[in-house]
């Protein structure tokens, strides 16, 4: 099960609004640069939300998910194209991967469990 997402500033802003996480590193390029980032970055929790949709599909429905673990290992910036995948890893278990177009893993050691 895979899903490819090209991140945009609009999508990151929509996630900020929907989640209530208005940290300016996700919304304001000037602020993000002032703290050493290249510009605004996507929320780790937006990546996890997308990974969760892929895991839910692989599990046969979100209501079956019992655990989701994500390690945010790489930054995602607007314009990045990320492939999210969930692969079977034994009964009731999934390995989760997210890799950007340069082959860098943006999620590592990520997994899900379902019933």
């Amino acid at each position: 099960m895979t899903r490819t997402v090209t991140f945009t500033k609009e999508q990151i802003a929509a996630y900020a609004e929907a989640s209530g996480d208005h940290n300016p590193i996700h919304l304001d390029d000037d602020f993000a640069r002032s703290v050493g980032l290249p510009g605004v970055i996507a929320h780790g929790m937006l990546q996890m939300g997308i990974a969760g949709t892929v895991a839910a599909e692989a599990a046969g429905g979100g209501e079956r998910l019992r655990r989701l673990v994500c390690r945010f290992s790489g930054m995602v910036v607007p314009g990045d194209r990320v492939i999210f995948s969930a692969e079977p890893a034994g009964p009731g278990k999934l390995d989760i991967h997210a890799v950007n177009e340069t082959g860098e893993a943006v999620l590592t050691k990520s997994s899900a469990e379902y019933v």
Partner: protein
Amino acid sequence: MTETGVAGRTYPAVTFEIDKDSVAAFAKAIGADPAAGVPPTFAAVYALGATAPQLFGDPDAAIDFAKLLHAEQEFEWMRHPQPGETVTSQGRVASDMSRRGIRFVSFETETKGADGDGICRSRALFVIRQ
């Protein structure tokens, strides 16, 4: 590794209504089907999002938001909440350690239903450069 800050601190429980319009907006933002019910990761809102501001606003915790990274997140669900349901979430600092100028704060949130049944356990690892 030395213990720092607010290890063991528990914050007051927060009541949160699983509002269907908020759920729909969240589903849309992550590209989930809004007709498929509450996305599992809406726990980012009803568990983590409902309680983390207490930690970030705690003067004793002294967390510099500009130096904060969310390094890891885990959700464990006993069940998923329904739209219209009111849940209660309580946050706790499971550990707060510093090593070589980097502070690691493990923040756990337990979410329960109206009758006290378990819904979700959230564990966030925040890394703060010092």
